[in-house]
């Protein structure tokens, strides 16, 4: 048995791939649900109704999808250029704490229209800086950025924990380590009254379209792709490899930082060390599920958010551990990898 590269890929195959992958993941996760002694179809139905069954749950799912779109884009942009940014989680937290600190101390009192964009810039900048360090280590010392970005996640989280237990600690929080609240003018406007859904969702979707445009219609988009597909070939063709990677890293780290900023300004209003239930790591799965397509990221983020919110509700009523959501999402990633492979190769005897 051997694999042979396909000459031609039909559009149908490309569109069907993620759907088949998700179905396969749901089937395997179904075995795990059955092993726990619960009816599988009822469990999936519960997941769906818990995620979209009411106005409250639907807005909650969309609120969860917003940061996932941004961290997903952060991973997708970087991976396309073969810059393995696994540090989304750390960049998310740095973006969140930078914005919270700036709002409480630097820009407090500024009107919303001025303050919010300024905080976006500050948060994105913080995320950028955290990714530029591993990129510099790669370009200067040829250190694999996978390991350094992963390790920096732990450093960033400890750094945030230090700040919210120290200089940025909210004195009114009864001793709990949490940052001071952001300025009232910095809170993002709601998309829907009486819900947690804020304009972050709109911003994330607009950015997804912007990135799609940049990747498909600009010179930089082509260069970043070339840097990923064949670095030495790209250099030969005149692509400034170092500069391209730096810009990619700034976009990727900036998006993850922005995700943290939007989460703290839109949802909580202050930073704790459980601000993110792994948004940075889930962003990687979202990007892979979307096959690195920026518009696909929006759909993949929606799927992932559905699983997480839905599994919470299903778990409460059926006694299946909520970790089934993480298992299903991880399985979707693995089956997506295999599915993409079979769109590129066929089996020959």
């Amino acid at each position, binding site marked *: 048995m051997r694999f042979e590269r396909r000459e031609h890929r039909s559009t149908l195959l490309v569109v069907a791939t993620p759907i088949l992958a998700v179905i396969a993941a749901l089937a395997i996760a179904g075995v795990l649900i059955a092993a726990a002694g619960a009816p599988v179809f009822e469990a999936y139905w519960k997941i769906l109704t818990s995620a979209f069954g009411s106005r409250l749950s639907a807005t909650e799912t969309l609120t969860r999808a917003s940061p996932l779109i941004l961290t997903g884009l952060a991973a997708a942009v970087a991976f396309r250029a073969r810059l*393995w940014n*696994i540090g989304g989680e750390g960049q998310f937290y740095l973006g969140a704490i930078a914005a919270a600190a700036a709002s409480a101390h630097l820009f407090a009192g500024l009107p919303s229209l001025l303050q919010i964009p300024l905080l976006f810039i500050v948060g994105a900048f913080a995320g950028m800086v955290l990714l530029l360090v591993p990129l510099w280590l790669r370009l200067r010392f040829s250190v694999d950025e996978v390991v350094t970005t992963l390790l920096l996640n732990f*450093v960033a989280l400890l750094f945030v924990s230090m700040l919210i237990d120290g200089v940025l600690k909210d004195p009114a929080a009864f001793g709990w380590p949490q940052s001071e609240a952001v300025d009232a003018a910095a809170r993002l406007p709601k998309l829907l009254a009486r819900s947690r859904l804020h304009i972050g969702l709109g911003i994330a979707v607009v950015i997804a379209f912007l990135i799609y445009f940049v990747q498909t219609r600009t010179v930089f988009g082509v260069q970043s792709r070339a840097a990923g597909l064949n670095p030495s070939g790209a250099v030969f063709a005149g692509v400034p490899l170092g500069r391209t990677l730096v810009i990619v890293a700034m976009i990727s780290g900036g998006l993850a930082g922005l995700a943290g900023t939007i989460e703290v300004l839109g949802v909580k209003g202050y930073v704790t060390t459980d601000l993110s239930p792994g948004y940075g790591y889930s962003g990687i799965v979202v990007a892979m599920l979307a096959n690195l397509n920026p518009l696909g990221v929006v759909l993949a983020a929606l799927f992932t958010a559905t699983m997480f919110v839905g599994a919470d509700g299903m778990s409460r009523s059926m006694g299946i551990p909520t970790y089934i959501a993480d298992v299903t999402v991880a399985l979707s990633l693995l089956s997506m*990898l*295999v599915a993409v492979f079979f769109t590129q190769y066929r089996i020959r005897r």
Partner: protein
Amino acid sequence: MSALFDILASAGLWAAVLRIATPLILATLGALISERAGVLNLGIEGIMTFGAMVGWLAVYNGADLWTGLLVAALGGAMFGLLHSVLTVTLGLSQHVSGLGVTLFASSFAYYVFRLMVPVAGTPPTITPFQPLDIPGLSDLPFFGPAFFTQTAPTYLAIGLAIALAYLIARTPVGLAIRMTGENPHAAEAQGLNPMAIRYGAVIFGSALMGVGGAFLTLSAFNSFFPTMVQGRGWICIALVVFASWKPERALLGAILFALFDAFQLRLQTVLSGVVPYQIFLMIPYLLSIVALAVMARRARVPQALMQPYRRGER
């Protein structure tokens, strides 16, 4: 200064060093052997988590401690098989596949744990490995408590590092592994099967990662809780580079690393209130990054690392 010296001169520090080093030694060896054959296994973090959980669960359900380690090895090997299918047979990106394996193995471990062990106020515990009493050696002043009060798996890990150093450098099996990691086409021309060798190295390496994780729950602590591996797997990946892909240096690197870790733990109590504890907790991760930056250029990377091998394809 005398406080620092007191820390270094205490037998307790050195006993802690070997205890902290053991899971790192085992998992680093696992990552190392698989990289020597040309496959980066970033599943390490999740595989350690799964090994920690499944080994503990076996003992909690009545198995003895050695059976627990064996179960952890088998659990690790299972995920090694998965990683092999994805990266060796299909030739997928080793980075992405490894991350997928980590996400799957750790979430699967948490799922199984929650399913088998109901939520309780205090986590259930088992009786872990006890320190071995070595006649003569354990009673020595200073050296006894410092180096000879470890549990059996620690000595096993050290022995294994030496055995693997010999295996890789001096035996035909080692030569076959190295050749597959340097130039699989040449290995095939010699009548070897690079695919089978990669499978073997990844599966064996993953079993070691599983055992490394299980040391945490069966010897260092006595219970399992989510996120207990705390990035140790990623640190091991850095240690492999630091060790320049040599088992004997991996042993040394892990011990050196554990020395810093044990030292900062003690320094933390001395300096508590002056320096935030988070600074100390950052040290291991920052140290790994620095070690990578210093060693990455000097280290001899296996030439075919991260390159999929397809028969008849160049």
